[in-house]
């Protein structure tokens, strides 16, 4: 694509991408660290993740202010307009992902003293891997303006949902087996729910990237994967 005649405009738009990529990198890092802390029952690392979220919040405000300034001063049109609106939306999804990583950190800190049931942790770790992989892919899709890759991320979210569903059932069974497991299992369930929400925000980003590149919304229906809200306890009784 040819550059803007006004160079400072070009620079402002690329600065926006630099900030988003930095934010995305931080969100990825925090999420990985948070899960690692949960898995290794490392309270200290969990605390670090909680503190580190602040940097993402600061970047979000920064991007927001920059987008507002670009709209006010440059009145972007067409793909530029989609670029700045996309940046605004992606930044808010990344901020939420940062919050979810922080929440996982809080859970990790809360249960650091308790030993975890092995099979549950392996399910959770599979989910965390998927969520991280999806997040990385969507950030690549944004950087490369790759609508096909964004579409793949969008479709693949159902894998995270499927893992969450089975994990939900597993934890429920575990709680019913022994009420002493309820405290720990609830924390882990919230952890899993946080990862599932990370997947949803990643999907939002994928939708934004697709719109940014193509100028239209993704049209096919995504299979809705998360079905635990409808799960009946009786099934497990």
């Amino acid at each position, binding site marked *: *694509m*040819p*550059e*803007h*005649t*006004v160079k400072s*405009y070009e620079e402002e738009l690329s600065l926006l991408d630099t900030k988003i990529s930095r934010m995305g990198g931080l969100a990825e890092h925090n999420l990985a660290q948070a899960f690692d802390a949960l898995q290794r029952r490392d309270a200290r690392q969990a605390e670090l993740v909680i503190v580190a979220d602040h940097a993402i919040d600061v970047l979000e405000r920064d991007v927001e202010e920059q987008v507002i300034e670009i709209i006010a001063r440059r*009145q*972007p*049109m*067409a*793909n*530029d*307009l*989609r670029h700045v609106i996309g940046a605004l939306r992606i930044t808010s999804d990344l901020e939420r992902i940062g919050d979810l990583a922080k929440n996982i950190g809080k859970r990790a800190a809360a249960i650091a003293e308790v030993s975890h049931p092995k099979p549950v942790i392996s399910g959770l770790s599979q989910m965390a891997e998927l969520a991280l992989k999806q997040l990385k892919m969507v950030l690549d899709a944004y950087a*490369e*303006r*790759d*609508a*096909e*890759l964004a579409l793949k991320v969008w479709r693949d979210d159902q894998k995270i949902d499927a893992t969450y569903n089975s994990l939900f059932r597993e934890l429920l069974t575990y709680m019913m087996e022994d009420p002493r497991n309820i405290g720990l299992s609830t924390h882990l369930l919230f952890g899993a729910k946080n990862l599932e929400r990370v997947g949803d925000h990643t999907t939002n980003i994928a939708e934004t990237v697709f719109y940014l*590149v*193509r*100028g*239209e919304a993704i049209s096919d229906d995504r299979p809705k994967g998360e079905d635990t809200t409808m799960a009946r306890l009786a099934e497990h009784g």
Partner: protein
Amino acid sequence: MEHQVVEGSKPVTVPALDPTITARGVNVFYGDKQAIFDVDVDVPRNAITSFIGPSGCGKSTFLRCINRMNDTIPICTVTGDIRIDGEDIYDPRLDVVELRARVGMVFQKPNPFPKSIYENIAYGPRIHGLTRSKKELDELVEKCLEKAGLLKEVKDRMNEPGTGLSGGQQQRLCIARAIATRPEVILMDEPCSALDPIATAKVEELMEELKENYTIIIVTHSMQQAARVSQRTAFFHLGKLVENGDTRQIFTNPSDKRTQDYITGRFG
């Protein structure tokens, strides 16, 4: 993957419903030099259409075909077919003076006649015999000034020269003058480029009201103005029509790469 927007060989045109003006295969030459190449355009009724494009792209030349202003340039020839409500405006039997009453025009620089405010408006209806009495003419003048949002500002100074008004007022006077002959179409060639933002806003508000009863075409160099005021946009480049469609679509997701480069400020 790369962006879908590509440079097409044929213009991207979304058809307009109920067009007032239809142009087909229009070419314009200044002597040997061709200024417009095979342009097809539909201009919808009771809507504002903006013509945009870099200087020298032919948008003003094309605009001037619609009221045959190019006839006044001896070396200029126009070929092709332009119709208003189905009527061929290049039909040799057509009365050009009458055509220009049906197709009013407003120019870049306000150009009121060196006459009183009243006479500026009354002149057209009088020569076209549109009113039968002084009273009727007075009413028409008042109505046109009212429509142009100027009546309140000038009603106590109707006999003062039109050239004594501010730039913005002069431009609205010219719009009032254009609508006095009861046209169907109003052509505006950069009507706000000499006006301050407040006067511009008043003209834009006026256009918005006028579009209920008129078909309006505006040539503008301001992308923001085209995006603000028009429902349809046509982008011209090097004498060709590149893209013509809904303004909303053109400014959020244009189909042709040249349109995108132009409206985002990436041209050459």
